């Protein structure tokens, strides 16, 4: 018990002393071991994995040496630029139409909400949207999506709870074709990426789109909860194996989480675009990803 109270107090103090130290180190002091240790703290606290943090810091050290930097303030800018460079390699390109976006991810990351917001984005661009409610597993998922579809004035094609998700997607595609829709958004049930059977089912759903709607520009977007830690890497890796991901959306970044795992993801998957960042509950809170803002937020 004593350990806990000490730890809690320790946490408070360490945190305070760290932030004070940072102000101190970033205002023109000499570069030393403490400086790197504290940078490590910032980066790991932002959920950048230990291995990536070492790589980034090694690169920083090399460039500091090469550029003969002496001040911490200059080094901080350099570090930010290194991170921005990595992230800028995966900029999302404009969508082309007709467009099909299948949205996947683990449970509770905000897939349904994100689809609602994406639908509103397209609606405001005067695009005709069809939404396929292929989450036929979670209780009331369909009701939740219907509310969003109504808000975006999108056509909503639903399946009953327990219905075959592939059949729902099939119906939605027929509807999209008949209405000459610009965009079809497909909501899928949340599933943990290590459940083989559920991932097989997802593959099947994904194939319906390529088979029935080959003329569509087909995107497969994974939604990752911004508060997630290192498991995000496993999520993206296994969903990618199953359906071949093209886009990433990170949600819930209106809290104090930094989603630094994105840095590792973009290095690992150069063909995946970081499409959106979710920073709140309303439709306007789904933003296009901006590497510069993102990195600055890590150092706030």
């Amino acid at each position: 018990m004593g350990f806990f109270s000490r730890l809690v107090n320790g946490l408070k103090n360490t945190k305070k002393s760290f932030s004070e130290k940072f102000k101190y180190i970033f205002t023109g002091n000499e570069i030393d071991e403490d400086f790197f240790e504290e940078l490590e703290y910032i980066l790991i606290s932002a959920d950048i994995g230990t291995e990536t943090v070492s790589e980034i810091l090694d690169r920083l050290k090399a460039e500091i040496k090469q550029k003969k930097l002496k001040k911490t303030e200059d080094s901080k800018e350099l570090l930010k630029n290194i991170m921005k460079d990595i992230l800028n390699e995966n900029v999302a390109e404009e969508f082309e139409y007709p467009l099909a976006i299948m949205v996947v991810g683990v449970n509770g990351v905000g897939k349904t909400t994100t689809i609602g917001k994406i639908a509103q984005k397209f609606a405001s661009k005067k695009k005709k949207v069809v939404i396929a409610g292929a989450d036929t597993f979670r209780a009331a998922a369909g009701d939740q999506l219907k509310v969003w579809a109504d808000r975006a004035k999108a056509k909503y094609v639903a399946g009953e709870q327990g219905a075959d998700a592939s059949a729902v997607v099939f119906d939605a595609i027929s509807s999209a074709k008949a209405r000459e829709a610009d965009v079809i958004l497909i909501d899928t049930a949340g599933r943990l990426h290590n459940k083989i059977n559920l991932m097989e089912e997802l593959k099947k759903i994904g194939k319906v789109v390529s088979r029935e709607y080959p003329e569509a520009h087909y995107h497969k977007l994974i939604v990752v909860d911004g508060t997630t830690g290192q498991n995000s890497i496993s999520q993206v890796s296994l969903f990618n194996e199953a359906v071949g991901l093209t886009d990433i959306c990170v949600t819930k970044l209106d809290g104090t989480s930094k989603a630094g795992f994105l840095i590792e993801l973009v290095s690992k998957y150069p063909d995946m675009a970081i499409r959106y960042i979710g920073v709140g509950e309303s439709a306007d809170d789904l933003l296009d990803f901006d590497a510069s803002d993102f990195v600055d937020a890590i150092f706030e």
Partner: protein
Amino acid sequence: MGLFESLGERLNHIFSKLTKRGKLTELEIKQAMREVRIALLEADVNFLVAKDFVSKVSEKAVGEQILNSLTPGQQVIKIVRDELVNLMGGTQSKLEVSPKPPTVIMMCGLQGAGKTTMAGKLGFMLKKQGKKPMLVACDIYRPAAINQLKIGASNAGVDFFEKGTINPVKIAEQAVEQAKRMGNDTVIIDTAGRLQINEELMKELENIKKAVNPTEILLTIDAMTGQESVNVAKEFNDRLDITGVIVTKLDGDTRGGVALSVKAVTGKPIKFCGVGEKIGDIEPFYPDRMASRILGMGDVLSLIDKAQASVDEAEMKKVEENIRKNTFSFEDFLIQFEQIGKMGNIQDIISMIPGAGTKFKATDVDETKIKKYKAIIQSMTKKERLNPDLIKASNRKRIAEGSATTIQDVNALIKQFEQTKQMMKNMNSGKLQKMLGRNFKF
């Protein structure tokens, strides 16, 4: 691939040159603790929690005698693991009961943590224990949250209370009144997910707490949460003085360092875990298993439990007897396959074995393959099963046809059987015991 190498392997590597017995030295501990720290961080244990933990354990470990049965690496892991178990507390899966019913349980947490699903599971669990719970819908914000809880209540077979989408404090109050009238002994209040920095919504939770004075305030947190978990837990605890924690989505492949972080900053017990999508998928929290998992050593204990619960002791005794007498036959093979089948989804079992999760692919352990093998054995005559040497080429063709497989399949099975038999022989001579002893003695 440092990331997926297990801590055990890495420590063994460090200590591989070290053969002398005796006490752990400061230098060895320092080297080992660097690896432990990385393992903790990779498991999403908070940076500061990991730092404090490592320095505390280092102090303890210096000068510790290395037990005869262990290597220095194993000794370090044992110390680390014991300390982790110690810090995460005992198994406390009991819910407090109010002396004046109804007992009010209030759920809280971030969006998407799994509160609504967990409320349904708690209701189901309490009903099985003979209670009469009522679920209350106080998430007035997320579209269809009320409906989701309603379906959860109906799946659990428990009562449900809703009162629109205006004032969650009033809804909670009225629910408790109704529970008193209707004789519900437990009220489970589902609240909306919220960020711990959202002042207005945190205030709302404080007001619900003030209005209904809950016996339990349970913070529900996603097992996949990253470094942020300490801030979330600390804020919810500071505002509400929570009574316990529920960790959800532990059926995923996350290492779940959040359990240690949350316990460290709140000091509150972790009471339950969510381990699946079905209404019965709720378990007590086992600190020992969690410790192994955080260190990346797989859920060995769960695996052992699972095996013990489903394996027919008498049947296995018979197999063991035959192994000892070296009369292991296809009959025994069949029994083994059936026992494996009883343990459940093979992929789930594999994922619990340390290190195996990343080394095996679904194709390596194919359940259809086992079904196929069973069919082949079942197509053999009793004599053939007991004396595999009798199986000649012509018999193989017949067996393949009888089991709707190919001769190649039959050959593959026979080959596997021979290999297994050889392994059994080695086991009898004690070779395997030594092998296992070296690798699995944590």
